C-alpha cells in the first residue's frame, strides 16, 4: 500500500478538478505522503494522466470538511506554487481526524495555506487596483483593453469584479496566462497573449499623470510606504510610475534646500494661546428681539460648554406667551436638532401638557442652560448636570428671554431651573407649591423635571409622581387665568 500515486491535473487553478481527484484519493485511503501532484504540460495532456490503482476504485466514504475549507482551498488553488495541490490534500486528510484544525492558525499547514490564500487575495486585490484600461475603436464602438501581469492564477477569480463594475463597457483584460472578455452581456475567458497585442497608450494617460504629480505632496516623502502597497513589479504596466523617480528627486532637493528637522516651535504656537483664550467675553449690547437673541446666543462663550455642544438651543414659542416653561438644558436630541424639548423628556412633557389642558404651541419653552453639557462615553454622549458657574453664566440669557416674553407665570422644571430663576440653591421638594415672585407681573412655580419621571423605576411611584406633575401644570394654568 505504500507505492506512490501520481496525479496529473489539467488546469492550474481549477478547484472542482482538484476536488474530484482528492475525493478519489481520500476514498482509497491514500495517505498524503504517497501522493505526487503534477500539472499537465498543456491542457488536456492525455498521456500525463495516470491515475494510481487505488484511485481507480473509489470506495464510497463520506468526506467532511468544515465550512471554511472550500473558501480557503479555492484561494490556495490559484497560487503559483506547485506545492499547493499537495498542501491542500494534506489539509483535507488531516481534517478527517482533526475537525477544528483550521481554527489553529498557528499550525504549520494551516499557516502555509493561509499565507498562500492571502497572497492570492492580495494579488487579486492589486489586479482590481492596477489594471489600466486603454481605449481603442472597433467596428462596435469603443473598446477598453488592459495588459496585466499577475503573480498567481487569478484571472477567472477576479474578472467578475470587472464585469460588475464596467457593465456598460466592452473590455478585455489580457495576461500572459489567460484573458477575460466582456461584451456588455457575458464574460468569457481565453488563452493568454502578448503585451504587443494590446494598445500601447491612451490619450487620457497624460491627464492621469498630471493628476498623479499634482496630488503628490512633496513635503512628505515615504518611498517605502509607497512600495509596500504598490510593489515595483507592477510598475511597468502603470502609466504613472514613470514619474516617480523625478517626483522623488525634486522633492528631495526641495527638502534639502529648506531648513530641515527644526523642532516645531512650541513657543510660536503658544503665542496664540493668549489670543485664543477669549472666554468670558461680555456681550456688549443686549438683543432687543427674540430673533436677535437667538442669533447672539450662537456666539456665546460665557462658559466653556460651547466648545463641545453643536450649538446653543434658544427658547421657542410665541413672543407674547403667558406661560413660560424652563427646563435644565438641551439633551442629545435637542442639541442635534437645535430645538428645545424634542427628546424623550420632551415627549413626557408634551403628554403631561395635553393632559393638563395646555396647548404646547401657546407656551414659550426654554432651558436654564442653553448648551448641551455632556461627557463622551464611547459612541454616546451622556448628560451631565450643569454646575453653578454654568448656570450663572447662562442666567443672563434666561433673564433676557423673561424680559422679552414677559409671561405671567414661569414654571421651573427641576432644581437647575429653579436655581436659575431664583438665583439661590433650591430643592424641588421645598420649592414646590410655593409660588415665588420674579417681577411685579411674573410669578414662578417649581415642579420636577420630566426626565426625573423617566428615571423612576418603581411603577407605582412613577404614576403618582406623574399625576402630581400634571397637577402642578394645572396649578400653573390656574395662575395664568387668575392673572387675567
Amino acid at each position, binding site marked *: 500500500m505504500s507505492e506512490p500515486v501520481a496525479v496529473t491535473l489539467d488546469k492550474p487553478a481549477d478547484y472542482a478538478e482538484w476536488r474530484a481527484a482528492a475525493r478519489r484519493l481520500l476514498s482509497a485511503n491514500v495517505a498524503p505522503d504517497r501522493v505526487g501532484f503534477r500539472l499537465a504540460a498543456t491542457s488536456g495532456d492525455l498521456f500525463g494522466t495516470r491515475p494510481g490503482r487505488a484511485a481507480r476504485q473509489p470506495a464510497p466514504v463520506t468526506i467532511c470538511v468544515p465550512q471554511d475549507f472550500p473558501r480557503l482551498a479555492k484561494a490556495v488553488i490559484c497560487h503559483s506554487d506547485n506545492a499547493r495541490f499537495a498542501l491542500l490534500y494534506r489539509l483535507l486528510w488531516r481534517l478527517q481526524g482533526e475537525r*477544528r484544525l483550521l481554527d489553529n*492558525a*498557528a499550525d*504549520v499547514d494551516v499557516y502555509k495555506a493561509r499565507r498562500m490564500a492571502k497572497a492570492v487575495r492580495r494579488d487579486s*486585490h492589486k489586479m*482590481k*487596483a492596477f*489594471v*489600466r*484600461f*486603454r481605449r481603442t475603436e472597433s467596428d462596435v464602438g469603443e473598446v*477598453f483593453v488592459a495588459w496585466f501581469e499577475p503573480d498567481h492564477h487569478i484571472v477567472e477569480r477576479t474578472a467578475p*469584479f470587472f*464585469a*460588475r*463594475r464596467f*457593465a*456598460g*463597457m466592452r473590455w478585455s483584460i489580457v495576461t500572459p496566462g489567460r484573458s477575460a472578455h466582456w461584451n456588455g452581456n457575458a464574460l468569457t475567458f481565453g488563452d493568454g497573449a502578448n503585451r504587443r497585442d494590446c494598445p500601447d497608450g491612451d490619450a487620457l494617460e497624460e491627464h*492621469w499623470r498630471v*493628476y*498623479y504629480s*499634482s*496630488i*503628490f*505632496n*512633496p*513635503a*512628505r*516623502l*515615504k*518611498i*517605502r510606504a*509607497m512600495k509596500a*502597497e504598490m510593489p515595483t513589479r507592477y510598475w511597468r504596466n*502603470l502609466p*504613472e510610475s514613470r514619474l516617480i*523617480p523625478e*517626483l*522623488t528627486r525634486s522633492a528631495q532637493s526641495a527638502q534639502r534646500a529648506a531648513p530641515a528637522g527644526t523642532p*516645531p516651535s512650541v513657543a*510660536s*504656537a503658544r503665542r*496664540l*494661546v493668549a489670543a*485664543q*483664550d*477669549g*472666554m468670558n467675553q461680555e456681550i456688549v449690547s443686549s438683543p432687543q428681539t427674540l430673533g436677535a437673541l437667538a442669533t447672539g446666543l450662537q456666539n456665546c*462663550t460665557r462658559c466653556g460648554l460651547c*466648545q*463641545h*455642544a*453643536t*450649538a446653543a438651543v434658544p427658547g421657542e414659542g410665541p413672543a407674547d406667551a403667558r406661560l413660560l416653561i424652563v427646563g435644565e438644558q438641551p439633551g442629545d436630541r435637542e442639541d*442635534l*436638532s437645535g430645538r428645545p424639548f424634542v427628546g424623550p423628556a420632551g415627549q413626557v412633557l408634551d403628554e403631561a401638557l395635553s393632559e393638563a389642558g395646555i396647548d404646547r404651541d401657546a407656551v414659550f419653552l426654554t432651558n436654564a442652560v442653553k448648551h448641551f453639557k455632556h461627557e*463622551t462615553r464611547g*459612541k454616546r*454622549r451622556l448628560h451631565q448636570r450643569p454646575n453653578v458657574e454654568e448656570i450663572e453664566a447662562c442666567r443672563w440669557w434666561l433673564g433676557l428671554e423673561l424680559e422679552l416674553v414677559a409671561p405671567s407665570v414661569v414654571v421651573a422644571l427641576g432644581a437647575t431651573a429653579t436655581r436659575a430663576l431664583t438665583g439661590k440653591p433650591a430643592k424641588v421638594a421645598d420649592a414646590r407649591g410655593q409660588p415665588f415672585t420674579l417681577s411685579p407681573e411674573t410669578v414662578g412655580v417649581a415642579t420636577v423635571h420630566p426626565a426625573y419621571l423617566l428615571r423612576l423605576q418603581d411603577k407605582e411611584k412613577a404614576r403618582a409622581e406623574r399625576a402630581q406633575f400634571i397637577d402642578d401644570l394645572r396649578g400653573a394654568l390656574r395662575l395664568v387665568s387668575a392673572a387675567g
Partner: protein
Amino acid sequence: MPHLSTVDKLAILADAAKYDASCASSGAQKRNSSGTKGIGSTEGMGVCHSYAPDGRCISLLKVLLTNYCQYDCLYCVNRVSSDVRRARFGAAELAKLTLEFYKRNYIEGLFLSSGIIKSPDYTMEQMVEVARILREDYAFHGYIHLKTIPDASPELLDSAGRYADRLSINVELPSRTSLGELAPEKDASRIRKAMASVRLRLDEKKEKGRHPNPRAIKATGQSTQMIIGADASDDRKILTTSASLYAGYKLRRVYYSAFSPTPHPSSKLPPEAPPLRREHRLYQADWLLRFYGFELDEIIAGGNDGMLDLDIDPKLAWALKHPERFPIDVNRASREELLRVPGLGTRGAGAIVKARRLGGLRLDDIARLTTSVVKIRPFITARGWHPAKAVEAAGLRAQLARPPVQRELFA
C-alpha cells in the same frame, strides 16, 4: 482670465486639494452596474488605485471645483489673499473627466471640494450639479464624496446627500476659539449644526430600514477633518474634540491633517509645520480610543504635558508606563488584555484566542499568528517563553523606538 485647458485646470485644482487627508472610498452601500448601461460599483472595501511617493493612497479623483475663494482662512492656501493660480472646472467638464478616469480604472470615484464663490448656496449648487450629472446623465454607480459647505441651505444638503456616498464637513480646527481667530468667516456653530443635521438624516434612514423614503439620503456616513499644528491646541484637546465629534455626529472618521505653511503666511500662524509624526500618532491614538478600549486619560498619560510621545506609538508609551500590567499570559489573558499588548492588533488577538482553544501556544506559534513577534515578545509569556526581565522602560524604549529619521533614498 487666460483660457485654461482641462489638463491645466486639473493641475491647479488637484494641487489645491492635496492637503485634504481623506481618500477613503470604503463603506458605501453595495451596488454595481450589472444589468445596466452604466458604469461603476462599490463593494464595501474601496480600492487604492495608485500610491504617490508621499506614501498616500490615490483612490479618488480628489479635486476642487474651483480654488477661487472669498474666505480668508489663514491656514488655507486658497484664501482670498493668497496669490496662487486660480482655475475653475465647469460641472459638465469635471463630470466627464471623472467618468473617463473611472472607465480606465484609475479611480474609485470623485472627492469634490470647493472654494466659496459668489455664495455658499451657489457653490454648493455647482458641486451638487457635478454629482447629479454623474448619477443621472451617466448612470454612474461609483463612489462620490462631497465636501459640503456648512453655510449652504438645508435643501442643498439634502440633494447632496441623495447623490453622494459620503458627506463631510470640516471642523477645520480643534477649538471654536481658534476657528474664530484663523477662519473669521467660518462659524463653528454652523459647521456643527450641519453635521448634526446630516446625522439626523442618517438616523432617519436607518430607522426606515429596507423601505427608505425615495428622497432619503443615499450617503452612508460622514467624516470631518481637523488641521493639526496651526493653533496651540495640544493632543489632549484634539482627541477630546474628536471624541465629542464621534459621539455627537456618528462620524466614520476624523482626519488629522498636519498644517502645511502656505506662501506668505500670516504672523498669527506658527512658522513651521508640525512634525508629520504627530499626525501619525494622533491617528494611532484615535484608533486605540475607538477599537481597543483605551480611555483618553490613559493615552494622554503615556506622553507628556498633554502631548503624545512622538518617538514611540501611544500603546507602547502606555505599556512602558505600566510595567506592572506585564507580562501577559497569551494562553489565559482575555481579548481585552491581549489588545493592550504593544504590537498586537485586533486581528492577532482574535487569532490567538481562537488558536489557543486547541492547545497551549508557544512563542513560534505566536510568530505565525501575528506580524511582529519581536515587538510583542517582551510583554508576554507563552508556553516555554518568559521574557528575560520585567518590562523595563528605558531599555525597551531605546530598543523599540524608531531610529532617528534618515532621508530615504530613492530605489
